[in-house]
């Protein structure tokens, strides 16, 4: 499981585990009926429970529980028939009750696993070689409430507290320390990010903090016991995660090689400097005084509820990949590309239903032209300006040779920019191929007659001239001749 670093210090192994906090996409908070909408005016979504008025009590949101179960089922985990909410006690201005309601020794989701595709990245902590598959074990996932936000510099020398976020449901997903490089950690985080959106339990919006990663990093000599870990807190971009891990790994190796010691610490990554530093606050010995929350009863998940949630679970990426390779004879590369997101897969299947049997060409267009255009326009799949029906309509015309590949590109560009269906674009732009063999033969006959000397050269062995004839014929057909048909006719007639 352990990959060696291949830069500078091959003698060190890297051990990485992740704790990911995913905000669940419920309408209301985990323990109250306040809205969870992002971006509201400060404290306008902080109801009596969110600000912890004396006497208020928590009541658990069914939507949060269902989402946790859904995640557990998606990673093949054991769903606890009875789990317990506990209080984690500490003082902080963004924690209004002075405790966070979380789950401690009895979480709702038990052990599971996630299969990831690791693409090598560049950097000192990179694993080497080709894209490979790896299984990362998930230790547990538990429900808890989010804290509020501190707004620094709100007033001279003061910090402002906004409790709109307080009480937003979180699923904390804890992995085993199974990752051995920044590349693996990022691949795992990406796979998890894709999964939570795939199964519709989180919007995964990283800018808004819906998906935040804490990364535990340690290094050790091969065969040595685990090193002391430092926890990089609150990473909300994959790029920063890679940078932070690279920096931290190098820092730990340098420290140890210079005879220093690593002390367990909570650290922050500064994207501006690319460095990590230990946090100054929460210097208290972590004594959270967990105990079962007396305001909440044990959460019992009945087999009925479990089955109800299971019925809402979509086909998962792994299963889809397998089906795409077997059912549609697609390559692993194509299957991976098409299952990069649920939107992509849904688009593919919808477009394909319009042109059955054209899976390969459909995959090519989605992974190729469509993805490239989305990238260029900085759009998500969900914002794609063309519909599966439009793409399918175009693919249909490629398949029945109405248009050439070059024509298709033109149709696609027009569709992307101005909308419309393939047939009317083909009509309007006159992109229909000439496939009438009589017409093509007539063009070829005229070219052969007008270029007797070149024909002679060709026939005497100058094969390269074939392209010259194709060019002339295409020009004569104003680019509309069906290329395959034209080739056939030309070959036949030139052969004499």
């Amino acid at each position, binding site marked *: 499981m352990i990959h060696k670093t291949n830069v500078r210090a091959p003698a060190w192994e890297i051990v990485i585990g992740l704790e990911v906090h995913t905000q669940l996409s419920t309408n209301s908070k985990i323990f109250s009926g*306040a809205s969870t909408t992002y971006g509201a005016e400060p*404290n306008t979504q902080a109801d009596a429970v969110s600000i912890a008025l004396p006497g208020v009590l928590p009541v658990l949101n069914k939507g949060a529980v269902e989402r946790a179960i859904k995640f557990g089922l998606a990673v093949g985990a054991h769903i606890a028939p009875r789990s317990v909410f506990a209080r984690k006690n500490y003082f902080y201005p963004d924690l209004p009750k002075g405790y966070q309601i979380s789950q401690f020794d009895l979480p709702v989701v038990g052990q599971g696993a996630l299969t990831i595709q690791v693409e090598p990245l560049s950097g000192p902590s990179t694993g080497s070689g080709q894209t490979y598959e790896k299984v990362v074990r998930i230790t547990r996932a538990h429900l808890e409430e989010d804290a509020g936000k501190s707004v620094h510099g*709100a007033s001279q020398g003061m910090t402002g507290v906004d409790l709109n976020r307080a009480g937003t449901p979180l699923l904390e997903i804890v992995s085993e320390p199974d990752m051995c490089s920044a590349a693996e950690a990022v691949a795992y985080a990406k796979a998890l990010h894709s999964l939570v959106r795939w199964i519709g339990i989180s919007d995964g919006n990283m800018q808004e903090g819906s998906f935040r990663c804490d990364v535990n990093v340690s290094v050790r000599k091969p065969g040595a016991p685990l090193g002391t870990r430092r926890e990089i807190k609150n990473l909300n971009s994959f790029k920063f995660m890679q940078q932070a891990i690279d920096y931290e790994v190098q820092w730990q190796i340098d420290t140890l090689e210079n005879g220093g010691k690593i002390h367990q610490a909570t650290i922050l990554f500064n994207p501006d400097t690319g460095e990590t530093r230990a946090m100054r606050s929460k210097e208290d010995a972590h004594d959270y005084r967990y105990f079962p929350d007396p305001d909440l*009863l044990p959460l*019992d998940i009945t087999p009925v509820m479990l089955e109800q949630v299971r019925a809402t679970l979509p086909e998962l990426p792994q299963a889809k990949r397998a089906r795409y390779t077997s059912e549609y004879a697609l390559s692993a590369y194509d299957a991976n590309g098409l299952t990069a997101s649920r939107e992509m897969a849904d688009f593919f299947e919808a477009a394909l239903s319009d042109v059955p049997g054209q899976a390969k060409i459909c995959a090519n267009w989605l992974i190729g032209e469509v993805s490239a255009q989305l990238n260029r326009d900085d759009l998500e799949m969900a914002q794609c300006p063309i519909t599966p029906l439009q793409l399918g309509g175009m693919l249909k015309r490629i398949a029945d040779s109405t248009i050439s590949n070059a024509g298709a590109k033109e149709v696609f560009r027009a569709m992307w920019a101005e909308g419309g269906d393939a047939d009317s674009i083909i009509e309007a732009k006159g992109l229909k191929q000439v496939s009438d063999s009589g017409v093509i033969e007539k063009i070829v006959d005229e070219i052969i007659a007008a270029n007797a000397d070149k024909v002679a050269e060709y026939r005497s062995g100058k094969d390269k001239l074939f392209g010259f004839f194709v060019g002339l014929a295409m020009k004569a057909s104003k680019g509309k001749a069906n290329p395959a048909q034209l080739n056939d006719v030309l070959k036949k007639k030139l052969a004499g």
Partner: protein
Amino acid sequence: MILANADVRKVARLARLAMSEAEIDAARTQLSGIFDLIAEMQAVDTQGITPMSHAQDLSQRLREDVVTQANQRELFQAIAPQIEAGLYLVPQVIE
């Protein structure tokens, strides 16, 4: 049970209660007396007994995921010690 001043100090710190040395002395004596009272239960054999967290052995009721609470910021912040622009103000937090 005899508590040390250091124990009391640590607990006061965890509970965020400012205490003078004199108060710590007094608290130590009183808490020691209370822990003597509590110590009675240490001798009881509780092997195999399930801890009882709630008066009833029931399961958590679930709330439908609907927004029921309107904005009441003005009402709630009327009783706040210090606010500005809708934010609760506290002395600077250093991360």
